């Protein structure tokens, strides 16, 4: 597995994060540095509680670090205001979570349109058209008007992938995107995610426990005790 090529879109240096209070306070991230380039798929792997998801939320600007710096598309975001981080999430980032987190009272189409509505880059008919295309690209062109709770788990996760792509983000952050799916659906969702990201020259950073998924990524970054450890061969690293 060679070093990734392409422009840097997301970078962090010396990230620190503590969680909990008083005696329960844990140093979850201990000076983590990470770089993501366009067109590459990164897998962050490691045992539960090692800080993978915390790192992902830091990179996704969902949480503020206690130390260190984060750059997104060349802009320093770690010390920025809530409003700036919120705007950056809408413009540059797409999220896929383990529990898909669709708005179940809305249709698949409406779910995909939600980030676009906030971005206000397209008219409503354009948003609808884009949402339809995205849903077709994840194989749900015939279920655009199904309510979220009328879709299977795999279908919901595919809608979540389409939603993550909606605003043409630079980076897609996925936290165990296949963790809640069976083998077949896991493979399908991963293939979709990587194909769409490669097509659009986006970087994908995913946290996974699935060794098969990790093996298919461009780069694996193993973590332990809040730090990246030396990269081991994919099979040995993901076998934990």
């Amino acid at each position, binding site marked *: 597995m060679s070093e990734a090529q392409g422009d840097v879109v997301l970078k962090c240096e010396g990230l620190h994060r503590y969680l909990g209070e008083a005696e329960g306070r844990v140093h979850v991230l201990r000076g983590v540095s990470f770089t993501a380039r366009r067109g590459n798929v990164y897998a962050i792997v490691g045992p539960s509680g090692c800080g993978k*998801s*915390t790192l992902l*939320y830091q990179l*996704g600007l*969902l*949480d503020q670090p206690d130390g260190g710096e984060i750059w997104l598309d060349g802009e320093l975001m770690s010390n920025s205001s*809530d*409003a700036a981080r*919120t*705007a*950056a*999430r*809408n*413009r540059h*980032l797409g*999220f896929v*979570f*383990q*529990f898909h*987190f669709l*708005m179940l009272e809305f249709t698949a189409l409406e779910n995909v349109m*939600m*980030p676009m509505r*906030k*971005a206000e880059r397209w008219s409503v008919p354009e948003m609808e058209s884009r949402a339809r295309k995205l849903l077709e690209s994840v194989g749900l062109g015939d279920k655009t008007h199904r309510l979220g709770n009328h879709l299977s788990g795999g279908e919901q996760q595919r809608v979540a992938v389409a*939603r993550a792509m909606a*605003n043409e983000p630079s980076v897609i952050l996925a*936290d*165990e995107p296949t963790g809640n799916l069976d083998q077949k659906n896991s493979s399908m969702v991963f293939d979709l995610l990587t194909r769409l990201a490669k097509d659009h020259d986006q970087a994908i950073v995913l946290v996974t426990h699935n060794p098969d998924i990790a093996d298919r990524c461009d780069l694996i970054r193993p973590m332990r005790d809040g730090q990246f450890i030396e990269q081991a061969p994919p099979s040995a690293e993901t076998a934990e």
Partner: protein
Amino acid sequence: MSLSCIVLGVGLFVITQATTSGFEKFFIRTILGTNGAVRIADKMQDTMGNMFANPEASSMVFRREERKYIEGIDEPDLLIKALQPFANVAAVSQVVTGTVTAESSFKEETAKIYGINLDDHIAVSDLEHQIIRGDIATYRVSPLGIMIGRVLADRLRVDPGDSIALKTREQNRRYTIVAIYETGVADIDKDRIYTHLSEARSLLKKTTGASFLQVGLIEPNRAPADAFLMEETLNHSATSWQEREKTWLEVFRALRISSAITVSVFTLIAGLAMFNTLAMIVMEKTKDIAILRSMGYTRDDVLQIFLWQAVIVLCIGSILGCILGASGTYLVSTVPVRITGIFATETFIVASSWGHYVGAVVTAVCTVMLASIVPARRAARLEPGDVIRGTAL
């Protein structure tokens, strides 16, 4: 839950306001229709007035310490003329009163005769519309015709066409009952007998003067100010209907406060229900809030979502509440209830007003929006990372 509480709050607000103000307005109408807006009676004589300097205010202060009244009005025509410059005065009726004994074939009752000029008195009262038996037109053409109250007629067991004797210490005259009226005010209906003014003067041997002047006003609510002016300029006691009926008006005021408290409780419950509902929704929707925030929706967007939710519930609740209030008010107005004493009615009296609906909706808006702010702000303050971490791990 919150919707039904808002509906009930708004609906009950409208109904209670309509019923409370209905009885109050009806009472005021009855009072104005019987005793008029202002009554000018006894002549006033200053027995002692003093004037002293107020050192603190550096001004002259007049104080009337005591007033002496001479019963009745000596020159009613002059007073009526003096009332003409009062812009708010609509009409004036001079009345001569006196106590008599009314004797029918069955019974004797003490009564008060009111000598009036019919047209003048109709202009300052609702007498024309208070006739329940007989005919006021007959009274007009019958010099010895009288009109008596329903309670007195029942006690004497007389009907229009019957005759009764009215006795004073010196005279005993027979009159024909041409009409029976009912004001609803028991004190009036049980002892008041209307006769022609000239006949009353003759029977009571009051050839000049009047017992009082009954004044009708264009705007009865201005009666206290007008009465004060009349008293000062005419040198006769002048009493407004608000002063005369102070006790009953206080009762109605207490009722209004009581109903306002009841309504406030409902509105408070509506507010608490709204707070509870939104707080529950915020708890249930933390995941959705986090997702919206991760997509780039701001804290203000989240705040607005919850406030809009409150606004939608509020709008639906207010509309349904107004419909409930209107239909409830109508239903209440059909409830049979026989009330006499201070006024007479066969059904519940209601007075619908746009003001009640506006008041109900404004109260609901204030309560619900206040109750919604806290949970909506709590939703907006949620950190997406905390929510997702808590759910995902």
